[in-house]
């Protein structure tokens, strides 16, 4: 195997949270609740998939929760974003209800998709700022992201579009076409790249001729920054800078967070291509465990406080499953409904 097993610069590495800002206890607990809820929800999703309760496939973001939570926490309410498949935490942060997510995974008749699309995907601009795009080939969300940002700029609105992406989606042409257009017009587009080391099974060394995705930013004459993605404080520090840069009208900003996907590309993937050493390396850097360590020591939280939140999340996920089981499937009679707008 000619891959470099650890794709993280030692200078960025850490095994403990570095709390670089003063944060209200309430916010610390909100982030914890979001990350815990995401982890618990996805564990349930994986179990349901194995048991045949979830059809199709199941895709998890386990190990990448700090990025989605941290970035969402520094966005403004009217900012838009797109998720790909590892950003469930951002949905929860923005107020998406677990029961609705679960019902979508079950293919049930709940808005806005009414069973037409996978539970993996969600778009609802009005309620969550979560943008529609072509959830098909990789990178398609960069051109659309540029288009939403164009609308903000044409209307002189101080809003920002945050495009979450993985490093695998930085190879297709759409990645370049979208950022190129946004950079020419200085559109408020922030590109958050979660570099988790693998595009499905293909390691970074076989994906790109540069070491970092951020090395591609100079081609667009935009800033490109690399940071450690499993420390929520670090994520917030860098994402805040990127988002404010875009909001000021200075154009796109690319941030690459080094991280690791602890599950397969989907739950059907046994991850046999991941070297054991790499797995162990990142298990010591699990974003949730690192954050718990911080909360219980520097953060001043008791384990009882965290356990109470854990129980709350478990109950929410159980309730979500019950809800998903109870709501009806969409009627085949409505399969052709809402194809063309009036």
């Amino acid at each position, binding site marked *: 195997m000619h891959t470099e097993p650890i794709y993280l610069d030692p200078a960025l590495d850490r095994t403990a949270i570095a709390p670089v800002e003063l944060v209200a206890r309430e916010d610390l607990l909100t982030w914890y609740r979001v990350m815990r809820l995401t982890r618990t929800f996805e564990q349930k999703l994986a179990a349901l998939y194995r048991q045949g309760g979830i059809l199709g496939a199941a895709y998890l973001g386990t190990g990448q929760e700090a990025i989605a939570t941290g970035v969402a926490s520094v966005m403004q309410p009217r900012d838009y974003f797109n998720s790909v498949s590892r950003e469930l935490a951002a949905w929860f942060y923005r107020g998406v209800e677990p029961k609705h997510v679960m019902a979508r995974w079950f293919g049930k008749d709940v*808005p806005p998709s009414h069973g037409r699309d996978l539970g993996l995907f969600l778009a609802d601009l009005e309620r969550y700022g979560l943008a529609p795009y072509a959830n098909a080939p990789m990178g398609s969300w960069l051109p659309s992201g540029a288009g*939403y940002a164009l609308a903000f700029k044409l209307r002189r609105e101080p809003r920002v579009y945050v495009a979450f992406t993985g490093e695998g989606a930085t190879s297709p042409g759409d990645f370049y076409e979208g950022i190129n257009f946004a950079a*020419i017009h200085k559109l408020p587009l922030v590109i958050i790249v979660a570099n988790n080391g693998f595009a499905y099974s293909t390691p970074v060394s076989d994906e790109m001729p540069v070491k970092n995705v951020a090395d591609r930013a100079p081609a667009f004459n935009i800033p490109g920054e690399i940071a450690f993605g499993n420390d929520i404080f670090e994520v917030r520090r860098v994402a805040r800078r990127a988002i404010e840069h875009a909001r000021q009208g200075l154009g796109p900003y690319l941030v690459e967070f080094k991280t690791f996907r602890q599950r397969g590309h989907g739950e059907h993937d046994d991850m046999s291509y991941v070297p054991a050493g790499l797995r162990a390396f990142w298990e010591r850097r699990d974003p949730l465990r690192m954050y718990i360590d911080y909360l219980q020591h520097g953060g001043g939280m008791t384990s009882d406080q965290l356990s109470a939140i854990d129980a709350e999340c478990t109950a929410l996920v159980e309730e979500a499953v019950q809800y998903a089981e109870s709501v009806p499937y969409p009627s085949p009679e409505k399969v052709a409904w809402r194809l063309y707008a009036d």
Partner: protein
Amino acid sequence: MAAGETMGMTTTYLDAISQALREEMRRDSRVILLGEDIGVFGGAFKITRGFLDEFGSDRVIDTPISESGFVGAACAAAIEGFRPVVEFQFADFVTCAFDQIVNFAAKAYYRWGTPVPVVFRCPSGGGFRGGPFHSQNPEAWFTHVPGLKVVQPSTPYDAKGLLKSAIRDNNPVMYFEHKHLYRRIREQLPDDDYVIPLGCADVKREGRDLTIVTYGAMVHDSLAAAERLAKDGAECEVIDLRTLVPLDKKCFLDSVRKTSRALVVYEAHLTGGFGGEVAAIIAQEAFDDLDAPVVRVASMDVPIPFSPPLEDAVLPSADKIYRAAVDVLEY
């Protein structure tokens, strides 16, 4: 006043498109244009000449050569409340943006209930020695995709009225304008703000002996063939579909029930072309009325070649339509 408007008060097909765009941009500030070289240069075919001066660079946006990029951006801007009209320099280049059209624009409303009011102007068609990459008629790639509307006008009047409807429509519309008609076809247009609803075919010539169902540039070749057939004593009805999606089935089925014979003419390649769908509909819904097999006249199933004798061999023509019509009439 654009060139061409001055000549005998008639308007070319090209100027009709330009007028529709200009009038819609004046009417609705949400209409914006994106495309290659459409600003200072006025577009490869000069459809948008003078637009940059009148509407400014916020509304007439020159794009880099990256069709997927600006199509994806246009779709998102449409979702955000703008009404973008995208100009492809040639319909052939639509391949570069195929994914954003068929997987984003076409499916967003079905998936999320989010309308995508965007128009893609695609200068299409052959007959002027453009070769394999500047002559294609790719409409059937898009009629196959639920969620898109597909328009293909044949006259200045239709081009203007249909483009206005397309811009006002809340769905993604593929608008195929035939390059070979741009300066060749002209007519007098009304002064009023007329629109032609999508989904209404038009009887371009009435007749009782044979129905020719066609659209786009082939309307004119079909009319020429019909004139020649009239001299032979056969009166052809020429139906111009004008929009392929939504399709006005009733118009051509009514005609076929009257004439009992149908010829389907289209400039795209024979196999898998939209005319095959029309022929199937006639066979399925008007079988008992037919006195002869439904026959198609279309381009041969080879790329559109450059050299004149080769291109002429491939494309349908008034002469080929005439000969096919004689066969159907004599069956």
